[in-house]
């Protein structure tokens, strides 16, 4: 197994100088960072941290080419933030970034949760965890809501076994895979303090802030655009109101809540068209979300979002 394809030929003399700008362009890292800027709205601190990480890795790679460093840096990361703040999306980009820089060989992302790692009976956990690890080799293993692995109130919980295997692989196979753990900030903190092994093996902690209302509005517009829908002016205002109200209600999940709201708005729009239209419809009518489609949401009457879809369908 070659662990360093980027340290170059052992027979070749190390280069005397390195052009970081050229490296930056040729490695394709720039594209990924641009993509990140273009596709993700907001998330300033996250983008900043990723830029810094990319710079660090680029410099590290150059140092290795010149023979100044030999160790693979620890690349395991933790992404903390509320649901729907783009952790999985960024992890996907991170996998691409690490692949371009040559820190992982294949650059695929394997996304798992507790259920994929922890077994149901004695002797079930180890093979299950190993199975996932084998699939993640050469790429990035993304463990969503990692703190569920550790359940302190049940000492016979099999999560501990998965944690031990993970720690071992994170230490021994640093060349082969990068582990990203994600979850709510406070729960992750508790998880790390109960498992100091993880804390010391994770080099990069990246925090994902909540989106602001204006960012969420822009996100909603981009989401609609991607599906060839658009708001009319009133609907846009209604959406802004919706975001303000929705944030105050329970189970708010940032961009994910927005996506769900839009899905339901589309459902209402389809129903409205179906019931009100008696002539031919043009493309604009088919792709415009109006104020009524948004205002019908239960969020405006202060209710929970449970079975809103069903209600909307019944309307």
């Amino acid at each position: 197994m070659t662990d360093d394809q980027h340290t170059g030929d052992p027979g070749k003399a190390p280069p005397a100088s390195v052009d970081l700008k050229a490296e930056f362009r040729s490695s394709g890292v720039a594209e990924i960072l641009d993509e990140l800027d273009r596709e993700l709205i907001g998330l300033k601190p996250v983008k900043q941290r990723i830029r810094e990480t990319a710079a660090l890795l680029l410099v590290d790679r150059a140092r290795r080419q010149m023979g100044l460093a030999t160790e693979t840096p620890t690349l395991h990361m933790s992404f903390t933030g509320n649901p729907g703040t783009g952790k999985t999306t960024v992890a996907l980009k991170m996998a691409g970034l690490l692949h371009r820089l040559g820190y992982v060989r294949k650059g695929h992302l394997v996304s798992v949760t507790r259920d994929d790692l922890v077994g149901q009976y004695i002797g079930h956990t180890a093979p299950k965890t190993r199975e996932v690890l084998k699939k993640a080799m050469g790429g990035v293993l993304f463990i969503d809501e990692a703190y569920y692995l550790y359940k302190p109130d049940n000492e016979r919980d099999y999560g501990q076994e998965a944690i031990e295997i993970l720690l071992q692989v994170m230490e021994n196979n640093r060349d082969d895979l990068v582990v990203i753990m994600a979850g709510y900030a406070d729960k992750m903190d508790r998880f790390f303090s109960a498992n100091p092994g993880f804390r010391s093996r994770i080099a990069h902690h990246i925090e994902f802030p909540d989106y602001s209302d204006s960012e969420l509005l822009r996100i909603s517009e981009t989401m609609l655009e991607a599906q060839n829908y658009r708001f009319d002016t009133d609907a846009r205002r209604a959406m802004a109101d919706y975001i303000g109200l929705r944030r105050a209600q329970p189970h708010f999940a940032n961009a994910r809540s927005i996506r769900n709201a839009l899905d339901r708005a589309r459902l209402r729009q389809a129903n409205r068209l179906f019931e009100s239209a008696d002539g031919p419809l043009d493309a604009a009518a088919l792709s415009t979300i109006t104020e009524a489609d948004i205002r019908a949401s239960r969020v405006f009457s202060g209710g929970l979002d449970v079975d809103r879809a069903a209600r909307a369908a019944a309307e």
Partner: protein
Amino acid sequence: MRITQGCFSFLPDLTDEQISAQIEYCLSREWAIGIEFTDDPHPRNTYWEMWGNPMFDLKDAKGVMMELDECRKLHGGKYIRINAFDDMRGFETVMMSFIVNRPAEEPRIDMVRTDVRSRSQSYSWRVAG
């Protein structure tokens, strides 16, 4: 006596690096990799013991090498081979199979002649410990 079965068996034993490279090739063709071991190298013994389940959906050879290392730990004194299975409609068969581990001292295989009806002979092989 050196057993020659499967691919590469007339070559010197593959190094781990070479095995990885071969597995990378198999994975690039989207074949499933299985590890099998046996202590009976008789050519007619097609049923070797499976080491775990065949591995699907791997992206990198390292995953297989991990299993191979585990298998060597337990069965280092036996034959271990790697099979690559193609599930493509029309093939659905093992496309590549090669030995990756041999016992330090390989058993001898003797030929046995048996007289049968009217001086004709039948030949068979016997693994002599």
